[in-house]
C-alpha cells in the first residue's frame, strides 16, 4: 500500500512524517525544503504501508519546480492520501484539498498545528467540516505528537469524497465551508507576532538581522572552539599521539609506508598540522579541526531554518541581491553554502530561472567559503591576528558583490522578483532539529573524511615522486610572478581541487608572510570549486555553463590575487 503525505509547504508535513515513521527527513520552516521526496514505512494493523513525504505544494497547477515534482508523484498513483493542512490557514489549505478531491483517491484530512489555531482564537467545527468535505478529519499537533495516534487509527476510514464543484466556483465553495465551520475570536497581537512584523520592517529589520548574524557567529565560535580546545585536541594530543608514536617506533620511524601512515616526525614528535600522514593529519584535519565548526554551524543554521527566520532575512537582503541578478531567497543557498557548497548549489533549485541559478551557483562557489575551508583559514591566517581574517572576508564579500553586479549586466536571460510566504515564527521541534543536525553531520563525515584521506594520500605521492617541485617550476610565473606566493603553494592549489581544507593544511609548514597567507586564503577559496562541488555544478548547470562558471572563477581569482599582491 502506498500513502502520500501531501499539503502546503510549512504545515508540519515532515514533522508528521517523522512521527509516523521515525525516518530521516529534513524539515525546515521555509517553503520547498523537501525538494527531493522521502519515503518511509508504517505499520497499520499488521500491514506494512509505504509512506511518501511529497514536497509541499500550494496547488496542483504547478508554479515552481517543487510543485511540479509533487504533481508528478501524485500522477504516479497512490492508494491513500493524508492531506496535512495548517489549521491556522484553513481557507488557503482547502484550495489544495478541493483539487485533491477531484483525483478520486481515498483521503484523510489532518488538521495540523491545531494547538496554534486554538491559541490564535480560531475554532474549527471538525465534525461539520468532515460532513461538508465528505472526508474523515483529525486534529493533530505533530510537534508534541498529540493526535498522531488518532490519525493512524483513522487511516482505514480514508474516503473518496463525493463533493462536487465546478472550477470557477471553487473559491465560493471554500468560502461557504469556511463560513460555516470556522469562527475567529478577536484577540490582541502576541509578542511573537510583533517581533515577526518588526523583523521585516526596514529599520528594525536591519537591526534584528545584524543582531541575529552576530549572535550566530558568536555561538558558532564558542561551540567550535570549546569542542576543539576541551574535547578533540586533548583526545588527539593525549591519547592518539602516544599511540601513533609507538606505532612509528614499530615501523622504524621512517620509510615510505611510515611516511604515508604516520608522516614526518617533527623533532621526534607527531605534529598533527604538519606531519601529513593518513592516520595523523589525515584524521586530525577533518575530525579535530573541521568537524567541531561543522557541528556548531549546522546547529545554528538548523535553528534559524526551523524558527522561520530565513525567509525574513530573504526580505531584508532582497534589495541588495537584486543588484546581483538574483532575489532575496538566494540567501538560502548562500547560507547553506557557508556549511558546504554542495547542498548550497543543490538548493539553488529554489530559484526559478536558469539565469538566477547560474548566477547564484557561481557566486556561491567562488566567494562563499565552506565551513571546512573557513575552519582551516581561521586556524592558519588567524595565527597572526584577526587583521588577516578581516581582509580575507572583506575581500571575498567585495568579490561576491562585484561579480554579481557584473553577471547581472552580462548574463543573458531573465531574473524574477521575490515571491515567498513568510511563515510564522515557531519554536523549533527539538527532536526534529537534532535529527536534522545529525543527518547533516553524518553526511559531512561520509563525504569529507574519505576525500581528506585521499587528498593526504595524493600529497604524499606527489612529494615522494618530486612531482610538486616539478609543478612548482612550471607554474611559478603565475604563482610567484602574479600572486607573489612561494612555488610550493602549487601543491596546495592542486590538492585544493580535491579538498580545500587539506590544501590550507599544506600551507602550514611553508612559513609564509602575513600578506602571502591572506592572498593564498583568498585564491584558494576562489580559484576553483572542490571536486564534490564541481560535479554538483556540472549536474545542476550543465557542462557548457559549468565551463563558463569555471572560466569566471579562474580569471577572477587571478585578478583579485594579483591586485592583493600589488596593493597589500
Amino acid at each position, binding site marked *: 500500500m502506498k500513502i502520500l503525505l501531501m499539503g502546503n509547504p510549512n504545515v508540519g508535513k515532515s514533522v508528521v512524517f517523522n512521527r509516523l515513521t521515525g525516518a530521516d527527513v529534513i524539515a525546515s520552516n521555509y517553503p520547498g525544503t523537501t525538494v527531493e521526496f522521502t519515503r518511509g514505512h508504517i505499520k497499520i494493523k499488521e500491514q506494512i504501508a509505504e509512506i511518501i513525504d511529497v514536497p509541499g505544494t*500550494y496547488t496542483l497547477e504547478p*508554479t515552481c519546480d517543487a510543485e511540479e515534482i509533487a504533481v508528478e508523484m501524485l500522477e504516479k498513483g497512490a492508494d491513500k492520501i493524508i492531506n496535512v493542512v495548517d489549521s491556522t490557514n484553513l481557507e488557503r489549505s482547502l484550495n489544495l484539498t478541493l483539487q485533491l478531491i477531484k483525483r478520486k483517491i481515498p483521503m484523510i484530512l489532518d488538521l495540523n498545528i491545531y494547538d496554534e489555531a486554538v491559541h490564535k482564537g480560531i475554532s474549527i467545527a471538525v465534525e461539520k467540516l468532515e460532513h461538508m468535505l465528505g472526508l474523515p478529519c483529525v486534529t493533530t499537533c505533530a510537534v508534541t505528537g498529540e493526535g498522531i495516534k488518532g490519525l493512524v487509527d483513522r487511516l482505514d476510514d480514508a474516503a473518496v469524497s463525493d463533493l462536487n464543484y465546478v472550477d470557477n466556483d471553487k473559491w465560493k465553495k471554500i468560502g461557504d465551508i469556511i463560513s460555516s465551520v470556522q469562527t475567529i475570536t478577536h484577540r490582541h497581537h502576541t509578542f511573537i507576532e510583533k517581533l515577526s512584523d518588526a523583523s521585516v520592517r*526596514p529599520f528594525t529589520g536591519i537591526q534584528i538581522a545584524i543582531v541575529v548574524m552576530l549572535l550566530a557567529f558568536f555561538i558558532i565560535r564558542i561551540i567550535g572552539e570549546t569542542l576543539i580546545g576541551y574535547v578533540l585536541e586533548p583526545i588527539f594530543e593525549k591519547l592518539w599521539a602516544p599511540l601513533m608514536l609507538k606505532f612509528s617506533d614499530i615501523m622504524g620511524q621512517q620509510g615510505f609506508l611510515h611516511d604515508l601512515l604516520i608522516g614526518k616526525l617533527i623533532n621526534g614528535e607527531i605534529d598533527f598540522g604538519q606531519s601529513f600522514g593518513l592516520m595523523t593529519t589525515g584524521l586530525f584535519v577533518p575530525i579535530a579541526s573541521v568537524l567541531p565548526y561543522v557541528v556548531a554551524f549546522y546547529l545554528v543554521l538548523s535553528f534559524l531554518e526551523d524558527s522561520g527566520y530565513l*525567509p525574513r532575512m530573504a*526580505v*531584508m537582503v532582497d534589495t541588495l541581491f537584486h543588484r546581483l541578478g538574483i532575489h532575496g531567497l538566494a540567501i538560502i543557498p548562500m547560507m547553506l553554502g557557508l556549511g558546504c557548497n554542495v547542498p548550497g548549489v543543490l538548493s539553488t533549485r529554489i530559484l526559478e530561472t536558469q539565469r538566477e541559478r547560474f548566477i547564484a551557483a557561481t557566486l556561491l562557489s567562488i566567494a562563499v567559503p565552506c565551513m571546512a575551508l573557513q575552519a582551516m583559514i581561521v586556524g592558519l591566517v588567524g595565527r597572526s591576528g584577526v587583521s588577516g581574517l578581516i581582509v580575507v572576508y572583506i575581500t571575498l564579500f567585495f568579490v561576491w558583490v562585484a561579480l554579481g553586479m557584473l553577471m547581472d549586466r552580462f548574463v543573458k536571460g531573465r531574473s524574477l522578483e521575490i*515571491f515567498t510566504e513568510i511563515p510564522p515564527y515557531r519554536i523549533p521541534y527539538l527532536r526534529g532539529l537534532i535529527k536534522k543536525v545529525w543527518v547533516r553531520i553524518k553526511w559531512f563525515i561520509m563525504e569529507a573524511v574519505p576525500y581528506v584521506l585521499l587528498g593526504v594520500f595524493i600529497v604524499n605521492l606527489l612529494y615522494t615522486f618530486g612531482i610538486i617541485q616539478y609543478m612548482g617550476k612550471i607554474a611559478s610565473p603565475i604563482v610567484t610572478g602574479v600572486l607573489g606566493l612561494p612555488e610550493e603553494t602549487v601543491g596546495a592549489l592542486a590538492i585544493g581541487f580535491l579538498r580545500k581544507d587539506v590544501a590550507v593544511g599544506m600551507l602550514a609548514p611553508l612559513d609564509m608572510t602575513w600578506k602571502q597567507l591572506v592572498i593564498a586564503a583568498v585564491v584558494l577559496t576562489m580559484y576553483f570549486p572542490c571536486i564534490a562541488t564541481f560535479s554538483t555544478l556540472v549536474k545542476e548547470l550543465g557542462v557548457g555553463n559549468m565551463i563558463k562558471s569555471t572560466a569566471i572563477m579562474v580569471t577572477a581569482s587571478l585578478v583579485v590575487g594579483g591586485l592583493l599582491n600589488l596593493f597589500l
Partner: protein
Amino acid sequence: MSKIVSLNEIPINTSGKIVEINGGRRLFAKLEAMGIKIGDVITKTSAQWMKGPVIIRKGNTDVAIGYGMAGKIMVETSGKGRLTG
C-alpha cells in the same frame, strides 16, 4: 470616498480590496495558490526601502512579493489615511 490605486501607493498598515491584478497569468496563479484573489481584502504590512519587497497579509498568511508585482495589484481603499502618490 474610495480610491483605486496600486499596492505601492498605499501606506503600510493599510487594507484594501483587490480589484484587479494587472500581471500575467503567472502572478495571478501564484497569488491564488496562496489563497489571495480578486475580491479579497489584504493588508500591506511592510515595504522595504529602495523599491524592495512588499509584504501583504491575508488572514494568517504573510507573503513577500517584489515591488514590481505589488505595482500590478490594484486595490480599493476606503480613502481614509494618508495616500502617497
